[in-house]
């Protein structure tokens, strides 16, 4: 079969369209499909996670006090991305952007994940210290709970553990 558009090249793309419940089928060659924008429709969905995020960011901007002119222009020093660029693209420019736009990202991460705090794996090179710090946080929470419950024996035990980890951490960070 030849392309229904140009009538020259072999048709390699079957394009089905449903408009108001009416279905039309066209057989096109790759070139005409490209021209008609069929391929770009297929491969670049406009309804993507990034466009949704961008909408979320837009509403976030509306909900918060308007950014000051300085903040609006704040750019990442590594990639040059501004918060406005991010709100439009729904994606950050580089890893440093997380630090640059921390204040803005924090509420967003909570909205997406329900939490803003990483609890998972750490790379090997920071592993030891990061893991210890996370354990420390957990123990401190337990300690607060133990004190609230007036379980002083347990609290004393926890305090010893905390001290031990703190002293190791201190040595490592010196």
């Amino acid at each position: 079969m030849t392309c229904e558009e140009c009538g020259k090249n072999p048709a390699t793309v079957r394009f089905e369209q449903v408009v108001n419940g009416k279905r039309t089928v066209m057989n096109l060659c790759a070139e005409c499909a490209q021209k008609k924008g069929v391929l770009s429709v297929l491969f670049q969905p406009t309804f993507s996670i990034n466009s949704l995020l961008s909408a979320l960011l837009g509403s976030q901007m509306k909900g918060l006090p308007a950014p000051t002119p300085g903040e609006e222009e704040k750019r990442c020093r590594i990639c040059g991305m501004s918060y406005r660029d991010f709100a439009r693209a729904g994606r950050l420019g580089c890893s440093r952007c997380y630090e640059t736009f921390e204040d803005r990202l924090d509420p967003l991460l909570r909205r997406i994940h329900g939490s803003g705090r990483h609890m998972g794996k750490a790379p090997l090179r920071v592993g030891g210290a990061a893991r210890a710090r996370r354990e420390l946080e957990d123990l401190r929470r337990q300690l607060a709970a133990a004190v609230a419950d007036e379980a002083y024996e347990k609290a004393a035990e926890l305090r010893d553990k905390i001290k031990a980890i703190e002293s190791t951490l201190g040595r490592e960070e010196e």
Partner: protein
Amino acid sequence: MRREGSLLENIVRRSSSPWMDGSGTMSDVVISSRVRLARNLRDVEFPHRMDEKAAGAVLDKVKQAVSDVNARKAMPELTCIDLQDVSPLDRQVLVEKHLVSPQHAQPLPGRGLVTRPDERVSIMVNEEDHLRIQCLYSGLELDEAYITANGMDDLLDERLDFAYDDRTGFLTACPTNVGTGLRASVMVHLPALAIGDEVSRVLSAVNKVGLVVRGLYGEGTEGQGNVYQVSNQITLGQTEKEILENLSLIAKQVVAEEKRYRETLMKNRRTALEDRIFRAWGILTNARSMSSEEAVKLWSDVRLGVELGLIEGPDVTHINEILVIAQPHFVMRSHGRTMTPEERDIARAELLRRHLATMRS
């Protein structure tokens, strides 16, 4: 270059992959388990902001790290393929075999694929993130898949400077992947629930507990072959273990529900079920022209028949391969040229007849 070429040739010509061999837990319903880790290099622009030079530099760094990993022989030998050296047709076959995402098959400079002969590990270089480490296993084997992905991550972490922050975890281009960078998914086959018209009920419940449901080839392919991919949505604030356990728990519930429906069908509607399955088998083994959609649809009935022991003989790998043979680019690749839809349908029917004939004897 020669090794890249021969590995690629082997992958795109073969309709089978180790992750569809029907091994693993609950493989009568769960086709495969996948774990993906998103990683990025510190202070390097994310792929959507990179120019050609920067993208090439990232790919070179990954190549270097991979050859260093190979030198230590810690894993089966990995090969790094520059996707610019791969023909458009072969790139699409890689998508059909789930080794790269549809987005990654678009020709952009610096895009790469690292994989090994058993296809269990594949790393997309410069997709949305600098690295996406993927592991695929047959059946419900999320832990196995994570162990392999995690090992790969450790080996690369020793050689590349990954962007990581103590508070936010691994940093990714899209904030939806930040933290663990872990997206785990199970591919389930739900033909009995589909016959009972219960798929949407079950899957909307899955949605409510924070998991996402997609089709065989991602968004927009829901329902094809009654195959669904269930994956976690949240990547930050939970440990990897919690994410995997949650998903596994929910997957088991879905499996139990599908099995309950299979039993009910066998008990109450056996004749109708057998009729449906053997009609599908008859068409798959005899048709002279077949569209991709029809092949996937019939595959679903036939796979159910094999799993219920109604069709004897074929093994699950053979049956699962039909999913790959059904795809348009795989058909064209096995004929070595582009084809019109009509030509493809004829070639597909022939490939399927030959494929199924080898196992009936």
